[in-house]
């Protein structure tokens, strides 16, 4: 790969990293806002109690529970962020395909929801293990989802499926909207082409099935 292509791929990786971490930080901020208001209300009720209003202990308990709930919720977001940030620790790794696809959907679902899409994975009938560049793989999945959402009508559900083939795996994204203008894979952004080159993958479109199909080898080699 040329230096220019590597630079473009690295920039794309930074962009992907920024989009995902920005989305997660937004979720954490939402939790903090709820905790902030519940703590503020606790102070308001204590202040009222100091002025003579008898404290409603049941109410105070519910507020405390709300704060605990939001702390647990924000902890799941931090765990997600942590896992994502550690995805670069061991660049090439063997992964459970369905598990990493689930994680990729989890990373993307807030951004998808803001664009009025829901994302689902149909689990494969068997466990599929592949060896790949984990960070670039997740980047590729996001690029595919981003592309499909750009071609789709809002308020629709996108479904991912995956299956093992003799030479590797196929990951299918759909449904493509019927009204979709036929597009050429070569029209996908440049960084997608670079990622395909790094991952030794291909993309094709099956208009009859209404799917975009990403094919990857079982073992990473570059």
């Amino acid at each position, binding site marked *: 790969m040329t230096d220019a292509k590597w630079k473009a791929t690295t920039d794309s990786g930074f962009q992907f990293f920024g989009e995902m971490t*920005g989305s997660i*930080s937004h979720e954490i901020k939402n939790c903090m*806002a*709820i905790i*902030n*208001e519940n703590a503020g*209300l606790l102070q308001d009720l204590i202040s009222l109690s100091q002025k003579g209003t008898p404290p409603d202990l049941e109410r105070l308990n519910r507020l405390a529970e709300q704060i605990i709930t939001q702390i647990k919720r924000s902890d799941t977001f931090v765990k997600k962020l942590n896992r994502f940030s550690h995805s670069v620790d061991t660049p090439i790794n063997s992964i459970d395909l369905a598990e990493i696809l689930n994680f990729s959907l989890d990373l993307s679902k807030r951004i998808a929801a*803001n664009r009025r899409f829901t994302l689902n994975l149909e689990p494969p009938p068997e466990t599929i293990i592949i060896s790949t560049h984990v960070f670039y793989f997740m980047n590729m999945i996001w690029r595919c989802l981003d592309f499909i959402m750009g071609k789709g009508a809002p308020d629709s559900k996108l479904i991912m499926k995956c299956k093992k083939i003799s030479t590797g795996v196929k990951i299918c994204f759909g449904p493509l909207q019927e009204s979709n203008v036929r597009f050429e894979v070569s029209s996908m952004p440049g960084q997608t082409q670079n990622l395909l080159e790094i991952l030794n993958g291909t993309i094709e479109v099956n208009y009859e099935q209404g799917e975009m199909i990403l094919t990857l080898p079982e073992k990473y080699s570059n």
Partner: protein
Amino acid sequence: MSEKVLLVDDEENFINTLAERMRTRGMDVSTTTSPKEALKMVEEESFDAVVLDLLMPEMNGLETLNIMKQKNPDLQIILLTGHATVEKGIEAMKSGAMDLIEKPADLKTLTEKIHKAQAKKMILVEKRTEDKIRNIIASKSW
């Protein structure tokens, strides 16, 4: 006169708790998690201020703001964002927002902005009334 406020955010717990705190401070507060419902509410009722989340699944805050301002140019809208930057602030003002606040919001700061919103709205309504009276006087050949 108590301020009439509409809170719009997809996090129900957040707006319900914030609304309760604002009501204990004398404000008349309505809430909705749906930007589409918020659009109907601003048509049906007169609010001194709308506090609107920037990022919501059903419709984003800027899109909602634009439609609200088209329906009622005098509406004072305060945007809530998880990450307030200078760029976002400029974009918000260009779109017609009165102000931009970062979450988690300090209630004292938010309350001050709502007071300002009410004052600004009253000035706009008074000016419109003055202009109407001036036009009536000018059109009558007394």
